[in-house]
């Protein structure tokens, strides 16, 4: 390492690659930097470990998602396969998406760091895995590449890079695909791998969200669990069609526990998002009127990407509210908005994506009110 180092420093023959070298060096070794001013000792935590903890927290939904892709495929063609076969099938579908996402994203991050002479930030370690997890299994790879590039450049780098972005990069990628290529991102046929032409009779690739929505617009005034091809239990466990990582509420909760226990994810945001979703669902229950209004509030928490969004997307510290009081409001409103968008807006079957992005935009406003309150408390002291 020490022999290589001079080549990458100013004046060395590879000095144009110094950010790249630094990134690999600090990945392999915690550097020998010591404190100069201020505190002489520093906490053992750094951004690399923080981001890696989030990656670990995503492992349960990733592994389950891979199995589920295979399971849904074999179900759709009327075959049964072993756990391993299901998993291997899903692995073959998911791995290319993950590789493309990381390659494109990290490539752009390194290039920007190089041009600006910055260090490479670790933020994309998380975004690079979140993007595949929130996409359908059969998404064309070129779309993944385009969306990732869009998310990193427009979603992040134009704002100044990691820490400065307003919108969650992974959701930016998803929303880009959703509006640019709706055919690949919506409908009843994209959520299961393989070709719909091979589906056996009676198999439905439709998601819960689409089914309950269609029943409502079809005139059903009351909710009946038989309207959905998946039971509440199936939806909670996650063996249903959907994006790679979103289907299992149970494993999202496992990830949430890990994030909370390691102190990385904000439990305030996770809890308040679930509470917000449930409260809004309960209000709609009281109003009643059609099947969607009438659907028990807890269904909202276990169908679609609610749990996935609440645990892995809403908690992104950069785009969430940054004050502790603000986090409660931010999460609660995400939950409320998710259910409102699902039920009231016919254009978007999935509400959590739009709700989080909307609240990303409003988070600074929430913080501003919390800060104002702090300032007012200080001013009141003088007059008191």
């Amino acid at each position, binding site marked *: 390492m020490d022999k290589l180092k001079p080549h990458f420093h100013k004046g060395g023959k590879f000095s144009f690659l110094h950010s790249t070298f630094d990134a690999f060096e600090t990945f392999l070794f915690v550097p020998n930097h010591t404190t100069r001013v201020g505190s*002489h000792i520093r906490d053992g935590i*750094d951004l*690399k470990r923080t981001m890696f903890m989030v990656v670990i927290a995503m492992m349960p939904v990733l592994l389950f998602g891979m199995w589920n892709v295979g399971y849904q495929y074999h179900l759709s063609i009327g075959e049964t396969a072993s756990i391993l076969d299901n998993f291997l099938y899903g692995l073959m579908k998911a791995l290319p998406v993950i590789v493309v996402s990381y390659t494109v994203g990290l490539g752009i991050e390194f290039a920007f760091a190089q041009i600006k002479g910055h260090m490479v930030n670790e933020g994309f370690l998380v975004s690079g895995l979140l993007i595949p997890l929130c996409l359908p299994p059969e998404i064309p790879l070129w779309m993944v590449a385009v969306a990732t590039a869009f998310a990193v450049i427009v979603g992040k780098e134009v704002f100044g890079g990691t*820490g400065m972005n307003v919108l969650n990069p992974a959701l930016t990628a998803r929303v880009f695909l959703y509006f640019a290529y709706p055919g690949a991102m919506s409908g009843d046929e994209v959520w299961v791998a393989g070709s719909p032409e091979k589906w056996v009779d009676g198999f439905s690739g439709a998601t819960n969200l689409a089914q309950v929505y269609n029943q409502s617009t079809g005139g059903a005034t009351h909710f009946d669990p038989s309207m959905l091809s998946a039971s509440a239990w199936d939806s909670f466990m996650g063996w249903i069609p959907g994006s790679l990582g979103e289907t299992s509420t149970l494993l999202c909760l496992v990830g949430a526990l890990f994030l909370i226990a390691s102190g990385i994810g904000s439990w305030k945001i996770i809890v308040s998002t679930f509470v917000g979703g449930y409260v809004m669902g309960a209000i709609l229950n009281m109003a009643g009127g059609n099947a969607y209004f009438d659907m028990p509030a807890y269904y909202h928490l276990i169908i679609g990407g609610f749990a996935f969004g609440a645990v892995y997307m809403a908690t992104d510290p950069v785009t969430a509210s940054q004050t502790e009081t603000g986090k409660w409001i931010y999460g609660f409103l995400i939950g409320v908005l998710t259910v409102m968008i699902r039920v009231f807006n016919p254009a978007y079957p999935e509400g959590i994506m739009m709700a989080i992005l909307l609240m990303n935009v409003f988070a600074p406003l929430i913080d501003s009110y919390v800060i104002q309150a702090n300032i007012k408390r200080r001013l009141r002291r003088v007059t008191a």
Partner: protein
Amino acid sequence: MCFTSNFAADLRSLSGMGNIIKIKRGKDINLIGRAEKTIRDGASSTTYAVQPPNFKGLVPKLEVKEGDEVKAGTAIFSDKSNPNIKFTSPVSGEIAEVVRGDRRAILQVRILADTSGISYEDLGAMDPRSADRDSIVLKIQQAGLWPALRQRPYNVICDAMDVPKAIFISGFNSAPLGPETNMLFNDADLRSFQTGVNALSKLTDGKIHLSLRANEDNILSKAEGVEKHYFSGPHPAGLVGVQIHHIDPVNKGEVVWTIQPNHLVMIGRLFETGKYDASQVIAVAGSELNAPAYYKVISGCQVGSLIQDLKQDHVRVISGDVLTGTRIEKDGYLGYFDNLISVIPEGDEYEFLGWLFPTYARPTISSSLPISKFLKKQFRANTNYHGEERAYVMTGQYEKVMPMDILPVQLIKAILAKDLEKMEKLGIYEVVEEDLALCEFVCTSKMEVQQILREGLELMESES
């Protein structure tokens, strides 16, 4: 009137103590190498130093030259903006060297001490109870003890024209390896402390607040003429800034003064004997010392002889505590405000995949390092950054160690943006560097919080 206030005081003393102020947010960093409870003689130092950089914002005007003979209490330099404020020699001897740095700024004035005992300037004894404010101020200034009083906001030397709304004293130290108050003072010191309090009471129309740790035997609790407050909880409970915030916070336009107990003892001795007697007890502590202990020394002493018995040589010597102290050489000098020398290992080593698999325990507030956080009780902490500086990503960390109603991240961002109005509104007048030292310690993005705050304070001061 008199009756009721005495009655209230009696009630408080009957119940043992007043209300306990509970500090919840903070972190006790438990380092290996606390000073053993024995006091050794540390008077073997041959040179002493008075160091202008110890005093924020000071422009010194030298009053001696190399080779001059001085006594303890002879002015070495004065404050250029107020020549009455003297900085005096703690011992008698000969001016050995004036050490200068960039642009000839004076860093140290070194004094070679007499070997035959200390001779003192006679500054005149005085009973502060019968003296007026001006003569008390003048005496403290001439003896070189005025700089021991520091003003909030900004943590700078006080202006005697100001009448502070209160004076605050922290009677305990909660910092890592911090000395225990009962080791620092004996009964004679307590009497001088009381004389010092009597003198201070002439400087303010308000109260003198003394903060003590709840449920702890503390020699200073016997002092009279002070309002006592009791704090419980982790560091930074012992920081005077935190105590001010909970007792009587500093608002815009207000000024309070702070002073450390050891300096108040010196002020007391000055009024009792007419001498500047700068002797004090300090703790010499840290994992790299074979025998950490307390030492009786004189302010400004060279620390070399106190830290000779090291476990290994590659160490950082700090005058002060590991969160806020000043890095000094092994033959460096004790800072004016410090009563602790910390010796910890340097951390300039690479650690293979250390961010993922730490090879040794390190202090942390992060549960993502469960062995360090939950299992390890004491640490041999080193000076490694454990990472590199990054943009702000994580939130909610500073708040865990900030026991004031202040939004630390937002304040730091306002300083970085040089937004004076916002800095003021977010409470910059209430904090000095040490109050945010724990925020700097816990920062995932490895920001240099204390330095940023100092720049913000200097900006505020220059604009006001």
